[in-house]
Structures are given as C-alpha cells and as structure tokens.
C-alpha cells in the first residue's frame, strides 16, 4: 500500500466520494487494529488514550507509506474524524452491554464516569459536527481533535501553527454552533 493514504486523501479532496469512503474505511480499520495491538502489548485493563493512538498511528503509517505521506496536521484532521466514529461505536457497544448486562453501571471508577458522555449525546454531537463540517470544516476538525481525541489547545496550536488564543476562540465558536444546533434539533 504504497502511499495509499496520500492518494486517497488527494482523491477525496478532489471530490471523489468513493475515495473518501475508502480513506475513512482504511483509517478506521488501521486505528482499530492499533488499538487492539496496544491493548495486547500493554496488558490487561489498561485504557488507551486516543491522542497516543493517533500519534502512534501517524508514526506507524507514515513510516510505512514513505515520504509522500501527508503532513501531520492533515493526517490528524482525517484520523480524528475517524476516531470519532470509533469512539461512538464503542460507546454504543458499551451501552448495549450495559443494558443487557448483569449490573447497573456505577460511578465507582473515578475518571471514566466523569468522562463518560451518553452515546446518544455523542451521536447528536456527531451529527451537528457533520453540519458544521459543511459550513466551517476547520472548526469541526478542531472539535474532533479536542473533544473526541483529547488533544490540548497547545497541541492543536502547534499542529496547525497558529496561536493558542486562536485555537481557543475557534473552540468557543464551534461550541456555540454545536450547542445551538443541538438545541434547535431538540426543540423541533
């Protein structure tokens, strides 16, 4: 798969929807595979950070694909969007387990409960995000990076080569859009 990702990105950006689908499919399975590999490597019961996973995926894939591989910022943008899907799928699965399972989830674990957002909410956010992606794609990508993948403002600023203030301002703008969109959908 010689620079396959680069080719797919190029085609997708040129408006080739089949290429876009293929790009996301490839990234999805790639990230999924890596997540499993990491888990196996690190041993039981370790949770993964999406950020770490994306960084590793980049290194891994860029290493394989060679010098024509897209730059980090572009890659992360796509990969983060894929990661969103992965996370929502996972949340859905967990939800299904929970309902069919033996127990009610408790708030025993400290961080995960703070972090947990209901999968239906995630789907809502995701749908609003798709809308935003049509109006202002860079804002949508920012939300993928920040909210879904846990990148910090600093990391995103470095990635995009802009000031942290700009990133923060864009984040607030994106939040306004999404919040408004979700509320509007709910009030329909």
């Amino acid at each position, binding site marked *: 798969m010689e620079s396959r990702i680069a080719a797919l990105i190029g085609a997708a950006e040129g408006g080739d929807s089949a290429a876009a689908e293929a790009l996301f499919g490839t990234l999805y399975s790639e990230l999924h595979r890596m*997540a499993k590999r990491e*888990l*196996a490597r*690190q*041993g*039981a*019961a*370790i*949770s*993964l*950070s*999406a*950020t770490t*996973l994306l960084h590793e995926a980049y290194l891994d894939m860029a290493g394989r694909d060679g010098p024509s591989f897209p730059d980090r910022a572009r890659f992360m943008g796509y990969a983060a969007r894929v990661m969103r899907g*992965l*996370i*929502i799928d*996972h*949340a859905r*699965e*967990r939800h299904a*387990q929970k309902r069919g*399972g*033996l*127990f*009610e*989830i*408790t*708030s*025993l*674990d*400290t*961080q*995960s*409960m*703070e*972090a947990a*957002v209901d999968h239906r909410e995630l789907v809502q956010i995701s749908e609003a995000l798709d809308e935003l992606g*049509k*109006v*202002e794609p860079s804002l949508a990508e920012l*939300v993928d990076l*920040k*909210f*879904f993948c846990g990148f910090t403002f600093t990391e995103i600023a470095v990635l995009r080569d802009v000031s942290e203030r700009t990133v*923060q*301002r864009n*984040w*607030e*703008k994106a*939040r*306004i*859009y*999404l*919040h*408004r*969109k979700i*509320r*509007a959908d709910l*009030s329909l």
Partner: protein
Amino acid sequence: MSTLTPEQWQSLSPYLDQALAMTADERAAWLASLGEQNPALAAQLAVLLDEHRVLAQEGFLERGPAALPSAPGLAGQTLGPYTLLSQIGQGGMGSVWLAERSDGRFERRVAVKFLNVALLGRGGEERFKREGSILGRLAHPNIAELADAGVSLSGQPYLVLEYVEGDPIDQYCDQRMLDVQARIRLFLDVTAAVAHAHANLIVHRDLKPSNVLVRTDGQVKLLDFGIAKLLEGDGEGGAATLLTLEAGRAMTPQYAAPEQLTGEAATTATDVYALGVLLYVLLTGQHPAGSGPHTPADLVKAIVDTEPTRPSDAVTSAKANAEVTTSNAARRTATPEKLRRLLRGDLDTIVAKALKKNPQERYASVTALADDLARYLRHEPISARPDIFAYRAAKFVRRNRTAVVLAALALVALIAGLTGTLIQARAARQQRDLAFRERDRASRITDFMTNMFKVSDPSEARGNSITARAILDKSSQQIDTSLAKDPEARAHMMYVMGEVYDSLGLVPQGKSLIARAAELQREVLGPEDPETLTSMSLMSVILLEEGHYAEAEQLQRQTLTVRNRVLGPEHPDTVRSMSRLAAVLTFQGRNEEAVKLERDAVAIDRRVLGPEHPETLLLTNSLVSYLWMGGEPEHYPEAEKLQREALAIERRVFGPEHPDTLNAMFNLATILRREGQYAESEKIFRETLSVESHVLGPEHSDTLNTRNSLAVLLTQQGRYNEAEELYLENRAIQRRVLGPANAYTADSTYNLACLAAIQGYRDKAMALLGEVVGHGLKPNTALHMEEDDDLKSLRRDPRFAALVAHAKKQAAAAQRPN
C-alpha cells in the same frame, strides 16, 4: 429556535471572532456601538453570545467521551480469591472491575481496581504492597474499605475495594434538592472520614465528588484513599503529581490545591483545600475558579493566583446566567437572593479559610473545619474570622436578640393561651419573666459586648472559640483588680456585666454584680446620681424576675420618685421607670393600674422621642400586652389600633422583612384572633408565615411558632384537619432538626393529642400522649395535663389517670436528690 443558514453563520463568524477575543466589558460596549449601526446584526450576535454563556455554564463538550475499548476477555478470570465479573469503569489510572469472591467463604461483591503499571514508577511493586497494607487498616464507616491489594500474575497491581453503589455527592445533593443545612450535614460525614484518615497519617490527595459517593441510604463513602500516594515514587512528590495529572488525561486539576500544582508535597492541608472546593461546589453549584470555559492553563492560574469569588457573590453573580443561578438556587430549595443571604457571612468565611492559597493559613486540621461548620449549624460563633471580636459581639447580640423576640412572642402566646390553652401558653408562662425584659437592653449590650471583646487580647482568642459566658466570667473576676483605682468605672462595668448575665438568664450572678454596683455608686456618686438610679431600677427588674414583687415595686417607686425630681418627668429614664413599675403591677394582678401607667409612659415618649423611636415602639408593645392581659374585651379595640399603628411604623422604618415587623404582624394576628376576626387574623398569620419561611427559613423557630399559632386559630374554628396538617408539618421539621425526643418536638405531639381529644378521638389522643410523656415532654406540661381543658374528654379515662400519675411520679423522682 431557528438554525442559522450557512450564509448567516459565515457572515456572523468574523464578528464572533472579534467578540470572543474581548473581555465582557469591552464586549458590551462593542455590541452597543455595533447596535447603533446594524441593530439586526448586533441582535443576532447577542443571541449567540448568550448561547455561549449558557453552554459555558453547562460545561458543554468539556468532558470528553468515554475512553477507548480496553482489553476484553478478563471477565471470568480469577485474581486470588476473586472472580472478575465485568468491567465497570476505566480511566487514566487504570480500570475497575466488578468481582465476587470465588472461594465461597462469604458472598460479597467487590470492586477490583487495576492500576496502570506505567504510573507506578520506580520500585513500585514493593511499595505498592506496603502502602496497600497500611490503607487496609483504615476502618471507618464513611471510607470504602480496602479489602486487599496485590499484583496479578501478569505483573499488574490491583486493589480490592468495597463495592459502593451510590452517586457522587454533588449529584446526590442536587437530585434530592437538599438545602444548605442538609448539604453541610452530609459534608460533615465526609470530614469525619478524612479526619480519621489523617489521624492514621494518610492523606487522600484526590478528593472530588466522584470520589465521594453517597449511597441511596444516605451513607457517605469515600473512595480511593491514598491511591494517589500509591502512584507516587519515593521522594519525588512533585514529579509524581505532575505525572498523575498527565497520566490521567481525564483527571482535571479542578480539585487540586495550589501546592499540588506547584509541585510541593501534599499534606493534610491539601485535603483541607480540596474539601474547601467540594464545599464550595456543594453550596454554590459552581467551581471556585468561576464558571467555564477553562483551559487547563486558566485553571492552574485560578488555583494558584486568583482569590475565589465569595460563595454568596457567586450564587447571584451578574456574570452568571440568570437561568443557571435560579436553577442552582432551586436545587438548594432557595431563591438566588435567599441563597446569597444564607451563604453570606459565616459560610463565606469558612470556605475562604479552607481555600487559602497558603497552606498555613488554612484550617489547621479537617476537624477544625468541621467544628466551624458544626458551630454554624448551631448558630454559634465560628472560629474563622480576622476581626474576630466585633464579629463575636454582633453574633452574640443577634442570638440574644432572638431570645428576646421569642420571649415577646411567648408573651402574646400566653395571652392567647388564656382561651386557646394549647401548649404554647404554658411554655410562655414559664418564660414570662423573660418577656418583660426590655428589648432596648439588647442595643446597650451590643455596645458593651463590642467593647469587651475589643479589649480582649486577640492572641489569646485565636484558634479556639470563646463563649460570651467565658469572657464574662473572666472579666468579672478581673474587675476588682483591673479597675481598682477607678471605682466609678468599676461600678459601671459591674452594672453592664450584671445586665448581660441577667439577659443570659444567669440571674444570681447578675444580681450580685448589680447589687455591688449600686452600693459602690451610692457610696461614690451619691444616692441620687443618675447612674445609681439606673442600677436601682435594674435591681427592681431582677427582683421582679425572682418573684419578689413587693420589694420590686417599692424599689421602682423609689427610683421613679427620685428620677422625677432629679431628671424631670419627661426624661426617658423617668419614663422607663414608669414602664417598669407598670410591669411589676401587672405581675401582681393590678392590670388596670399597669395599663394607665403604661399609657402615660407611651404618651410622653411619643411626644418627646417621637412615635418612631425604638423606645416608644417598645413601650407601645408593652401597653398592647397589658391591654390584653386583663382579658377585658373593652380593651381589645385599643390594643388592635395601637398594634396596627406600630406595625405601620415598623414596616416603614425597618422594612417588611424585619424581625420586629414580623413580630408586630404576629401580635396583630393574635389580637384579631382573640377578637374573633378570624379571616383577617388568618390572612396575616399566613403572610407572616410566608415571609418568615422565606427570610428566616422553614426551620426557624419563629416560622414554626407562627405555624403553630395559625393551627390554634384553625382549631378554634373547628378546622381540625387543616390544623392537624400544620402541626404535623411542624413536628416533621422539629424531628429532623431538633430530634424526636426534643421538648419542642414533644410540644407538637402534645398539641396533636389535644386536637385529637377535642374531636373525641380518645385512643389517638392517648397514644400521642403516651409517646411524649417521659419522652421529651416538659415535666411542667405533663403535670398540668389534668387541668388542660383541651384534654377534658380524657378526664374520665382510666388510662389518662394512669398517665398523669406516672408523670407525677416521674416529676417527684426527678426532684428528689440522688
């Protein structure tokens, strides 16, 4: 709500960029000027910026989604004696599994917490086991028990913990809409657990709502004690803290103390800080750093540098969205304004002291924090406060004042009791001496107490709370030596302290000081000096309180005569003597004389001091009481008229929510009830009740008292079901606040018994009486049950006779010296 079209969004987007880069003030000005040029645009922007405020309050998108999948297939595996059942959570520190014992020794579900190996640091395993065994000894009902700690075959360290099903404390409080007091009581359970751990030299280091769970039965359980410590390498505290922060991506530093963020060692003071944040959140619904959005950098800056907004300001802050402030307050069964009033003062001070940036300035221990909160709940002065002395004095007088107001209420209840004869009457009878104390003394006591506290040595008082009584005792011992050279001042001090003792109900101490003051003044200043006369006049009041009516009358007449001559007939002191003499006359049953004398006194004060003067209002109140006392219906219209006038003045001068105004409303309603003007009486009682519930709170004794009086009114009208509901409501509050065996709680039950007896439900009445006789009911009430007309339907019941005999036996036993 309409969504924006892409075109609209694109045209607004650059303006949003501008607006979001501004401070709130700049933004307002900018929007205003934009509004002049393009009102439609400005309006749209304003809507979006409002939206931003709302979402910031909600913390929209601030929590990330759940983490990625962790390794499947652990379910069913065993770990020592435990079988893993299913994963119940995961996070930066590791994952948590529900498990049960598989060796059949006892059935119990536990939570197994795996810790991330990478976080454990150098030499981790050994230390992990060692620490784990220390934590295992931490036994406290409010701490989730650590049952075991170990390292799995694959090298993964794990903890086996008590499995707790519950909600984080903040959610628990919100869901149940607990009010501020209930929240504090729950919080005190948390402090008890932390204090216990501290006593065992274990610091929690990561206290936050998700680590403080409350089970459905209300039991508080703290999780993860010392786990942060487990993750810390030996001798590298700072680095480990950073590592912990970094490792747990989801772990925000929201509850971290400044020293944790600057890499200093975590101590018990660190937990005090985190408890301060927790208390802040429970009380206000907000974080001390203010409402979001926070970048981690902002948060760190807020924690390390910025003084937090006072809780009372935070709950009504103009910056906050009104909807959010209202709903936050509603979750605490209050309005924002009421919540502000509740938090202002003591709670602000307590929270501020727990949240001091410098660990040394915080409460010295968790116990000290808990003690202050307990004092707050008991309406006692708290220890935290820089200008401690004036504050204490104010607090003391406030409490004292409540007592005086209560006494006045009791007097009115007494009068009502002449026909109503429910329990309050008897309580009032016992307190009638109190009722005759003039309330103007409260303000004079203020002056004195303020001064006395001011002359005390601040260094002596710091740290532990001193009571007014302790100060009095100490000062009265020192009085002879410290003021040896100034007999006049010495006499004055004796007088003032005697007055304070007296108003605290410590009559013998008061009497001896007043006697010594009078003697000294007669000697130094002469028998006709105004100061000497002041002491004599007060001595007469004390004699009255002791029941020595003849002596009291003789002394007050003597004082009045001299004052008349020396100060003139219209001097306020002379008038006060008239009023005090009137009180003595009333107690001797010479009510008509008292009425005439008090009328004259009121007339002079009205003319000389004016109708709005506190002294005039005070004497008017007394006159109203005397007009009542005789039970002569021809006096009622005058009483009603005077009370209406006084109420109008107090409404205007003090405002509708002032305790004196409420007192006047209560009195007027009572008079109207007596006159049979039930409709207006009920209306005013209900109005009073509503203001009191709102201003003083639903649990305040005045509120309960008013509800009780309203119930009496309804009983008189035969509206028994409504009356019963009110009594039950009062009793539920009293049981919760005062406890089931408290005398006031018992009073409510007694009233319910009376109500049942009036309706002829003798079994019910007997059951209710049986509940309280010997279990909280004041012996005096129990002894006079036979004479209570409300219970007359029981008089031929042998069970009632037995109960009365039992009460008498108990009272006799109590009086016998052991």
